[in-house]
């Protein structure tokens, strides 16, 4: 069984370590680096809860080996809000629209939304909703998430907080 050195950046901070080849990126982020906002649901690529941003793309961190992230820049949900607690626009939209209940799937959903919202040409409503097919939410029935996306993409008025 081989051990491998890795060096990567997580949420702007440099990390180095020696890891087993079979360690998934999801487990590395949670256990080795302490980013427990990465939620591990199915561990087989179905649920999307573990989605993080690797080199600017939303990926399932359970479907990537940690050693494959060597040299990469990884962002987890912990990087979204500003240090003073100001929410990222995708977090604010989810909060305004009751886009979460138990919150287990939320970090993954937020990372997909963030990457599509923050890119040079932000995604429109249809593209963002299509990308939600990669996430399973067992609480909300998705309607709050859809409303959040409509608010985020400018196709709906911001919701009144507490209106639901």
């Amino acid at each position: 069984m081989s051990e491998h050195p890795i060096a990567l950046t997580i949420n702007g901070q440099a990390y180095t370590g020696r890891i087993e080849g079979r360690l998934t990126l999801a487990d590395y982020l949670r256990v080795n680096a302490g980013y427990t906002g990465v939620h591990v649901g199915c561990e087989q690529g179905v649920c999307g809860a573990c989605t993080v941003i690797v080199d600017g793309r939303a990926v399932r961190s359970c479907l990537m080996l940690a050693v494959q992230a060597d040299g990469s820049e990884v962002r987890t949900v912990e990087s979204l809000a500003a240090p003073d607690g100001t929410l990222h626009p995708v977090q604010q939209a989810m909060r305004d629209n009751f886009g979460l209940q138990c919150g287990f799937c939320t970090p993954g959903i937020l990372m997909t939304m963030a990457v599509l919202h923050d890119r040079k040409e932000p995604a429109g409503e249809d593209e963002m909703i299509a990308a939600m097919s990669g996430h399973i939410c067992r609480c909300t029935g998705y309607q709050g998430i859809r409303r959040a996306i409509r608010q985020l993409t400018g196709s709906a008025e911001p919701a009144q907080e507490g209106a639901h």
Partner: protein
Amino acid sequence: MKPAPFDYVGATSIDDAVAQLASGDATVIAGGQTLMPLLALRMSMPLTVVDINRVADLRGVSVSDQGVRIGAMTRQADLLTDAALAGALPPLVTAVRHVGHHQTRNRGTIGGSLVFAEPAAEMPATAVALGATLELRSAGGTRNVAAETFYLGPYMTDIVPDELLVAVTFPAWPRHARTVFREVAQRPGDFALVGLVGAVEIEGGAIARAGLAWFGMGPTPMRARQAESALVGRAPGDIRASEIAELAIADTDPFDDVHATAEYRREVGRRVFAQALTAALAQEGQA
């Protein structure tokens, strides 16, 4: 940590990867969107995992008059943003849009999808329909295999354990060729219950070439050969889509499973084929 222990080897070149495969019980990891679940479930427990993600020679799309060559390690997401490919092979790009989800296309590769040989997947059927050739490399040399003969059964192909898929080459289709594509799935991103992909080329008012294949309609991609033959030489206005659909269904071998019966798949297939063919023949395009 759910996968069983294995030795991880990061290949630095095609030759390096092929040498690793020759040395014993090794599995290639490309995008990992299929292998990682199999490792997590311990349905796959290789001694060695050979990672080809950093082999630059396995990535990229090149478009020429002869056709399109795509490196096996090219990610599905990158096929969706390649302007030259969008002009040269629209049916392929349309099909890639239906592979998995945004998040899995960001890692998943065309080569991985081609060699996994899921019978209901889009990429194998697209390769069969458009007449692609797969380039397989081993320590012993290179072998080119037509996609049509590559698929032997569900998850079974002609590739042997020490071979690596290096690239897939599609023959040229004219820019005005019409895309034929329909997929019926329970949710976006699911494997198809019934799927149809291909292209129809119209030249001088008649169909000059047709390449059509089903997915989810048998143990492998199923080429609709009888329908193709019936189309060639006919003027679009003389075609009765429902008759051609009947011929196309005759070349399928669907199965019953928890999602649908074989008879349901055939019935949906008839309708989907007729609709997709009619839509393709009505597309804008010179000829």
